[in-house]
């Protein structure tokens, strides 16, 4: 009776557990440490390489092709520099702050137990979403590192062609520390499936012995408590819709408002200098995204394959949707529209990729394509802000759409895999009952917290950077182009 009355709580807690894209580490990996399956390890190494490919050259080209020739090199430099600097932050203290217990601040951020990757060796393991399945912790560290690298790189598109390089570097460092790491911790830090399984088993084992049970329940409560805030709410985010896309998208919007429009915006022709490179970048984003989403499963199994199918289908559906919407509205089917749609679909499916079914993700893609087309054209023109490369219109908008849709598509009745539950059948993965209101509400809460944290936080950080080094180059430098003015180089010398 008491026990049963506990279950709802467990399930909810449980649902919270499975939801993040990323598990925590197997702390206290008892006597015999678990040995990773080499197939999983191979997959995680590849997924890491794919996410890297997605960032450089992928994202750099997607963005670079959209700017004017005179700013191409600055765009490439910004993305490349961000990857380099963030990865150093990550291995020195970032990983530790995101994926260890933060003590009293644990709801919001981790601690310093693993600074400089202290205590990690080739035999250390990290938990996955399956009981008893682990991967080398180094693989988890480097896979996560690529996520930390690409997120701030997404932001720069919003204020491309006018920001100082020095300001960008400073902003990136601050943003990763105060925005990215906390959000990642809140959404993705948890104890791993076995911690729950064991604790829940103990509760059952305790049987009627009150003392034992009390202890076991306490332990279970403790395990449940050792996770990030959004995590505990039970928000579903398979591969980073909140942590990566909404997070970067809103920061970009704030940035482009603060920096103001580009000189000549609206008056002069600011056509993309190379849609060829933009298409190449989009294609690499797509390919790399297979690693981003299917890799977030942390295991090479049927669910990873499902995530890959969903990723593919959503991207294709969104591309087709944008293509035809524009064709109908403007009379011509554009390549830029098609690739923008593909990216919108990829963003939207990110949180849903391992939870929804292919048909649900197909529909999600169609909606994302049309919605983002509407935002990047009508809405943006109406509000008259200069989000150079539509970071908000694509990443934030599609990110929010995807986050909410995930709460719906996960339902088995819609072909989803259902909300995981690690406690009702301790030691194995069960499916918790799906309650629409609950499922969608936690998603909304997660989205709101992310928007507020990143929106306000970024505002503050931009102000600080502005005070310290100044955000924007002079008009003369902007006219000349950032390549020569800021980097003393030219992208092309044909």
């Amino acid at each position, binding site marked *: 009776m008491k026990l049963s009355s506990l279950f709802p709580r467990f399930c909810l807690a449980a649902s919270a557990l499975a939801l993040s894209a990323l598990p925590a580490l197997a702390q206290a990996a008892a006597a015999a440490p678990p040995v990773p399956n080499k197939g999983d390890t191979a997959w995680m190494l590849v997924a890491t390489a794919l996410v890297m490919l997605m960032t450089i050259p992928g994202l750099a080209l997607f963005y670079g092709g959209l700017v004017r020739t005179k700013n191409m090199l600055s765009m490439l430099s910004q993305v490349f520099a961000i990857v380099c600097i963030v990865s150093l932050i990550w291995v020195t203290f970032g990983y530790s702050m995101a994926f260890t217990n933060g003590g009293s601040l644990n709801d919001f951020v981790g601690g310093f137990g693993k600074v400089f990757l202290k205590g990690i060796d080739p035999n250390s393991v990290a938990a996955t979403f399956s009981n008893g399945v682990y991967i080398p912790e180094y693989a988890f560290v480097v896979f996560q590192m690529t996520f930390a690298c690409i997120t701030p790189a997404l932001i720069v598109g919003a204020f491309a062609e006018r920001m100082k390089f020095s300001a960008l570097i400073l902003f990136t460092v601050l943003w990763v520390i105060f925005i990215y790491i906390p959000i990642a911790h809140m959404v993705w830090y948890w104890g791993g499936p076995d911690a729950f399984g064991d604790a829940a088993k103990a509760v059952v084992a305790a049987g009627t012995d009150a003392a034992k049970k009390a202890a076991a329940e306490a332990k279970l409560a403790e395990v449940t408590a050792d996770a990030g805030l959004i995590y505990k709410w039970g928000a579903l985010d398979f591969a980073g819709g909140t942590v990566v896309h909404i997070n970067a998208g809103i920061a970009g919007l704030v940035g482009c408002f603060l920096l103001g429009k580009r000189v*000549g915006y609206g*008056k*002069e022709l600011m056509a993309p200098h190379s849609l060829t490179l933009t298409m190449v970048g989009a294609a690499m984003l797509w390919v790399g995204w297979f690693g981003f989403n299917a890799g977030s499963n942390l295991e090479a199994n049927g669910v990873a394959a499902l995530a890959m199918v969903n990723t593919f289908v959503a991207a294709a559906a969104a591309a087709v949707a944008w293509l035809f919407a524009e064709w109908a509205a403007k009379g011509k089917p554009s390549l830029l529209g098609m690739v923008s749609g593909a990216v919108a679909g990829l963003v939207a499916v990110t949180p849903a990729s391992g939870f929804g079914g292919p048909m649900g993700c197909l529909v999600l893609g169609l909606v994302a394509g049309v919605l983002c087309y509407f935002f990047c054209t009508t809405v943006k023109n109406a509000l008259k802000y200069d989000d150079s490369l539509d970071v908000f219109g694509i990443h934030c908008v599609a990110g929010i759409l995807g986050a909410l849709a995930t709460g719906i598509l996960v339902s088995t009745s819609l072909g989803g895999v259902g909300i995981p539950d690690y406690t009702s059948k301790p030691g194995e993965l069960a499916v918790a009952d799906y309650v629409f209101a609950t499922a969608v509400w936690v998603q909304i809460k997660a989205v709101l917290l992310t928007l507020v944290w990143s929106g306000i936080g970024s505002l503050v950080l931009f102000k600080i950077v502005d005070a310290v080094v100044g955000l924007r180059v002079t008009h003369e430098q902007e*006219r*000349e182009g950032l390549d*020569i003015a800021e980097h*003393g*180089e*030219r992208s092309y010398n044909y």
Partner: protein
Amino acid sequence: MKIVMAVIKPFKLEEVRDALTALGVHGMTVTEVKGYGRQKGHTEIYRGAEYAVSFLPKIKLEVAVDGPLVDKVVEAISAAARTGQIGDGKIFVSSIERAVRIRTGERDRDAL
């Protein structure tokens, strides 16, 4: 008939074109050129090698106009192209003896 050749800063092209159409001049030919003059260039560095680049991107404009219009055209161009900074460019006027519209074979002022 005269031909007015002007070398201006690239981002001034639209304004100059508008100024000319306002005068009823509906044709011109533009060329991307590089200019060398008082306006100082910049330095580029590629690994060890430093290059002083003194040729700057400019736009060359060629407009054939009927004699009487020349003053207005020159005026319009210099007004529209002026920023007041070094490098605004030059305008050169020379005369042409003949003009032909290829499509119709019309000649001289009819050809413009």
